[in-house]
């Protein structure tokens, strides 16, 4: 009874307050409906880019939005084949160190500048120039020596060493070709004024609110796998920043936006059943969410302890419980969406508590303390895993706690601690941790080299966080990045993936997937090979 009066009162108070607020501010019309948006797609994303210059910013969101603004020299189709785009053809020298590209005629940048060899050279030189302070792209082309303008339609790129993945690198939005005029004019301001030749023109950025992309009416050079090679069907894309997942999902389900990125896995079922909406899903290529293990300090310097940890966690059950099928558990250091993924790794290191116990006994961790943890010479078996809250998307903090609980059952104490950014980066950079975890989106098995080659430690721009130095692995990964024989590459990468699991250098957990909520009135949105949405073929049906 009493609660009921309360509730009525709450409602009344709320209505009264709202009415007052309306009087005070003059309530306008309600929400914009699709029809009133002038044929523009409204796309809600979870993160705002730090910078829109694809050669500076390391973030996925910059590459994803940049894909509409910039074209690349070559395109990669869904089957991972390199196809012509701004370059109509190319030759690779016998030693694999010179790439000559023949360029398309008649392409114009958004500022009217004609696309030619100068633009390619300007973009690559901009990437490696120290004053650009590139945080990702420059590292991808560390072997770049120079580019020569042979003539207006021909450019030659020279490398310090052969690098087979170069074409894949050049196909990404990270290497979208920028207008040389704009690069010169906006020096030091390229983050705020991206000028490319793509199907969408950057029209404005209202910080913390939205980015506007308008249709490029002159577009006539779409990539070969696009259904539509001409101008986009929609008048533009309005990218709204809605960081809070519940707000983003609600905005989609109430028709205030047409698409929403990063649908929480817990909402995927609801979206699949909802009338008038669908889920678009694409597994991301590259490295899965991976626990890198510190093989250079106790206790994980002992491979038996690493394997014990590997076999003590029910990854299947954890991933299923947390992500309800939206993401798949991983068996390999590459995701299934990556070229040369080794299917043979699947099921190769199943949950096996007896084996884990046997391994720990063999390693001398035979004692038990009051809390049930294993000890050796009176010392508890403790593993430190620091993390930074701002990086824990996809409920990774919860996942970490799950892994912690599993490890505890095996007698391993996992200290999973949140740190503020400064402290985290200090620990991570100084290798003052036993586990660090991250994922990496890249449509190229060469990502394995970034993770496990001894020359790819953090201070060299790689993500070999704990300095794995395995001559066998180095040899395979370096040969694979230089050979042009696809069969040989596949064999080498298969060996490398098996080796990482056998030595338990790292524990792959799950393959992230792009989860896009889409209203049925939107048609023709596709994913590129990096699982970024493309709007160039999209239509709005009202």
């Amino acid at each position: 009874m009493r609660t009921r009066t309360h509730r009525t009162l709450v409602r009344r108070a709320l209505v009264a307050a709202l009415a007052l607020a309306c009087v005070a501010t003059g309530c306008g019309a309600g929400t914009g409906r699709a029809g009133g948006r002038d044929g523009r797609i409204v796309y809600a994303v979870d993160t705002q880019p730090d910078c829109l210059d694809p050669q500076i910013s390391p973030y996925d969101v910059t590459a994803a939005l940049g894909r509409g603004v910039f074209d690349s020299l070559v395109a990669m189709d869904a089957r991972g084949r390199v196809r012509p785009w701004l370059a109509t053809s190319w030759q690779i020298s016998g030693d694999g160190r010179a790439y000559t590209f023949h360029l398309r005629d008649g392409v114009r940048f958004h500022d009217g500048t004609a696309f030619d060899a100068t633009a390619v050279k300007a973009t690559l030189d901009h990437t490696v120039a120290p004053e650009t302070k590139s945080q990702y792209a420059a590292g991808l082309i560390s072997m770049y020596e120079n580019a020569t303008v042979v003539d207006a339609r021909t450019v030659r790129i020279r490398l310090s060493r052969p690098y087979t993945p170069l074409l894949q690198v050049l196909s990404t939005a990270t290497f979208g070709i920028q207008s040389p005029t704009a690069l010169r004019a906006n020096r030091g301001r390229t983050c705020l004024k991206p000028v490319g030749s793509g199907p969408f023109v950057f029209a404005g950025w209202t910080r913390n609110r939205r980015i506007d992309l308008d249709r490029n009416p002159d577009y006539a050079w779409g990539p070969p796998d696009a259904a539509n090679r001409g101008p986009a069907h929609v008048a533009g894309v309005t990218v709204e920043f809605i960081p809070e997942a519940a707000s983003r999902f609600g905005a989609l389900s109430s028709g205030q936006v047409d698409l929403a990125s990063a649908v929480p896995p817990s909402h995927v079922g609801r979206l699949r059943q909802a009338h008038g909406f669908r889920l678009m899903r694409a597994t991301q290529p590259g490295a899965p969410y991976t626990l890198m293990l510190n093989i250079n300090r106790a206790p994980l310097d002992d491979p038996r302890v690493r394997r014990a940890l590997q076999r003590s966690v029910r990854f299947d059950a954890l991933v299923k419980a947390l992500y309800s099928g939206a993401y798949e558990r991983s068996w390999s250091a590459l995701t299934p969406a990556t070229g040369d993924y080794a299917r043979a790794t699947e099921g190769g290191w199943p949950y096996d508590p007896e084996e884990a116990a046997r391994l720990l006994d063999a390693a001398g961790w035979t004692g038990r303390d009051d809390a049930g943890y294993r000890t050796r010479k009176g010392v508890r078996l403790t593993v430190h895993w620091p993390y930074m809250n701002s990086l824990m998307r996809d409920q990774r903090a919860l996942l970490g706690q799950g892994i912690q609980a599993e490890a505890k059952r095996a007698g391993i104490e996992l200290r999973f601690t949140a740190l503020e950014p400064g402290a985290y980066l200090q620990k991570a950079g100084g290798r003052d941790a036993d586990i660090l975890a991250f994922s990496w989106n890249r449509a190229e098995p060469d990502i394995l080299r970034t993770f496990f080659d001894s020359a790819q430690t953090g201070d060299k721009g790689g993500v070999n966080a704990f300095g794995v130095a395995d001559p066998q692995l180095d040899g395979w990964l370096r040969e694979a990045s230089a050979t042009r024989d696809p069969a040989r590459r596949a064999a080498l990468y298969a060996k490398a993936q098996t080796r990482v699991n056998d030595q338990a250098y790292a524990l792959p957990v799950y393959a992230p997937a792009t989860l896009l909520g889409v209203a049925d009135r939107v048609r023709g949105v596709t994913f590129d090979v990096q699982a970024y949405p493309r709007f160039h073929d999209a239509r709005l049906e009202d």
Partner: protein
Amino acid sequence: MPPLRWFARRLLLAALVVFGAANAVFFAFRLLPGDPVRSVLGNTNPTPELVARVRHDLALDEPLAVQYGRFMRGLITGDLGESFQLQQPVGEVIGGQLWPTVQLAVAALLLALLVSVTLAVLTAHRPKVRRIASSLELVAVSTPAFWTGLLLLALLSFRLRWFPAMGGSGAAAVVLPAVTLAAGLVGAFTQVLREELERALEQPFVLTARARGGGETAIRLRHALRHGLIPLITLSGWAVGALFGGAVVVETVFSRQGLGQVTAAAVAGRDLPVVTGVVLVSAVAFALINLAVDVLYRLVDPRIDERSIG
């Protein structure tokens, strides 16, 4: 003390507060653990060359005294420099986000005052309603803004579609965020007001007014409310802090532009120029509001000497 001298002294004090706040930011920034350059670069693996380059470009490789001197020069000349991360002058970054936050704060404050006055006038010396109102106030105060905001969104935006879920300039877009932010203030305001009202209603002048046959509500509004306003003015300083703190959460839930989001990002990325700018703006606002409150006091009640004010 003559009013003009008093005023000059207060202004000087306010300037000192602002100056102190700026210094606190400068030194706190250097005492935090970790390398600020690594934080500025975010979660990437920068090469040592890149770290060195950024350190040099941000002038963080100079002796502390030189850095401090430059920082002071910037303060005095009003040049806050350029953001470490956004390729934009700090003035531009803050200028573009100040108005939405001010709009939100003012709307929330007015709404909170309106609701509190109504509640206090209706419930003072009426035990039954008072009990219900008190529990409501308690609920409003103890519900996290984050939750209030999502509930409002779920009901009034997603379901009824009366208000937009995001955006931030139209009048309609400010309603739900303002209600969310005001909910946290109403409780405190109402309790203070009601207590003062109840004290005032026991004064002889109210009895006289009743004897003359005024209506109860009219008496409450005309006579008693004036007395209740003084402690409310005192609370406004606290309210400004509460509003700014709440703005960070509210702006995130409602995807609004504003200083809250800028501050959160700048603190995480150790963007010293932006953080300094935000602190300066808040310190100036705080000092000015306190000054205005004191001036109001002296106008409302000339007997008040500023020494008796905390």
